[in-house]
């Protein structure tokens, strides 16, 4: 039971985190009416996962060999772009909202295309979704035997646990100030995207599209990225026990470039234009 529990918890954790964050985000900017973007994105993610899971069991030949890899790569890089965009936008808003003032940001809905959060929800769910579907399906075919039953139960418990964590983020996120929420989550999403970017680059490297580089370091004897803690760190910030030079480099590269974009000096609209302490009427 323990094994399947950990597998589904790990697979579901990232999706739950992202869903928890984007729901809280919409609630924070007073756009509860736009929840349907996230819900739709998540549901589409689940449906696409099931479809891909079924497709993979039906397909054979080159489509089975390459299809899932290519889709996986596509999802990774789309997720990186969407996360960066969203993180950038949130950071701009964290700056615009001064002090501990909680207020509705009406311009939010106009200046940030909210369907982006739907895409974010979709990629968050779909990324590990098909894999989880196949894993669960395999367990369910064996659920008739007593040991098979506990495995299947453990797997569903793992998913439920992940969902609970996502819900917990939503519940507790509501009490954090808007500014802090934006600041914290944009840092978190930055690391998450850096991990994804490095994973995508690593896949390209393994497939032979990028030159092969030696292993940068090996910390698997301290913290294996497939253990319980290491696995979570892997999902959260992209921790790798044995990255290649290219993977480690691309992680750093992304962090620097996106970090500069998010937290570097603002290119236009200098902050000094607004008197300190006053809340600009149209900060967005």
């Amino acid at each position, binding site marked *: 039971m323990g094994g399947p529990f950990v*597998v589904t918890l790990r697979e579901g954790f990232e999706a739950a985190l992202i869903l928890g964050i984007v729901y809280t985000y919409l609630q924070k900017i007073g756009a509860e009416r736009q929840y349907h973007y996230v819900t739709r994105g998540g549901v589409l993610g689940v449906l696409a996962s099931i479809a891909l899971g079924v497709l*993979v069991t039906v397909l054979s030949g080159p489509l089975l060999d*390459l299809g899932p890899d290519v889709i996986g790569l596509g999802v990774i890089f789309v997720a990186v772009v969407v996360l960066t965009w969203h993180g950038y936008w949130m950071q701009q808003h964290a700056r615009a909202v001064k002090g501990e003032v909680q207020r509705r940001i009406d311009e939010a809905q106009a200046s940030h295309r909210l369907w982006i959060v739907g895409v974010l929800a979709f990629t968050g769910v779909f990324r590990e979704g098909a894999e989880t579907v*196949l894993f669960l399906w395999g367990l369910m075919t064996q659920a008739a035997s007593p040991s098979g039953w506990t495995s299947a139960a453990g797997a569903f418990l793992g998913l439920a646990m992940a969902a609970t964590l996502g819900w917990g983020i939503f519940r507790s996120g509501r009490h954090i100030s808007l500014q802090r929420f934006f600041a914290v989550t944009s840092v978190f999403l930055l690391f998450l995207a850096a991990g994804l970017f490095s994973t995508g680059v690593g896949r390209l490297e393994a497939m032979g599209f990028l030159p*092969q580089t030696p292993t940068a370091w090996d910390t698997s004897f301290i913290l294996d990225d497939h253990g319980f803690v290491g696995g979570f760190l892997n999902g959260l910030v992209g921790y790798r026990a044995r990255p290649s030079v290219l993977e480690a480099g691309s992680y750093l590269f992304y962090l620097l470039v996106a970090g500069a974009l998010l937290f570097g000096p603002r290119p236009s609209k200098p902050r000094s234009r607004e008197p300190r302490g006053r809340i600009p009427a149209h900060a967005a």
Partner: protein
Amino acid sequence: MRRLVGLPLAALLALVLLIAGTAAAADTQIPLTIEKNQFQPSEVKVKANAPFVLVITNKNPKAAEFESKDLRVEKVVPAGKTVNVRIRALKPGTYAFFDDFNQQTTGRIVAE
């Protein structure tokens, strides 16, 4: 939105064709079977510095995921299916792999 979706799709398609083209090159095929929660053989010997194709057949009644941190490969192998995984040229050494859906199932590739 349509443009945003269309562009990655076109890129994906190009990538598929590219990969399909490179995969068509005749590399050595090395069979690997997953049966009764074990890899057969559990130690795969390959020539170093030459790419090869792992032909993985899953004879278990449930899906497996061939995964290797060393090789940076993650590949679902549905029950009863055979999947080809192209592995690039390896330097001499040992490369561990396992079934991510059943982590007691492990094996390794020895390149020499």
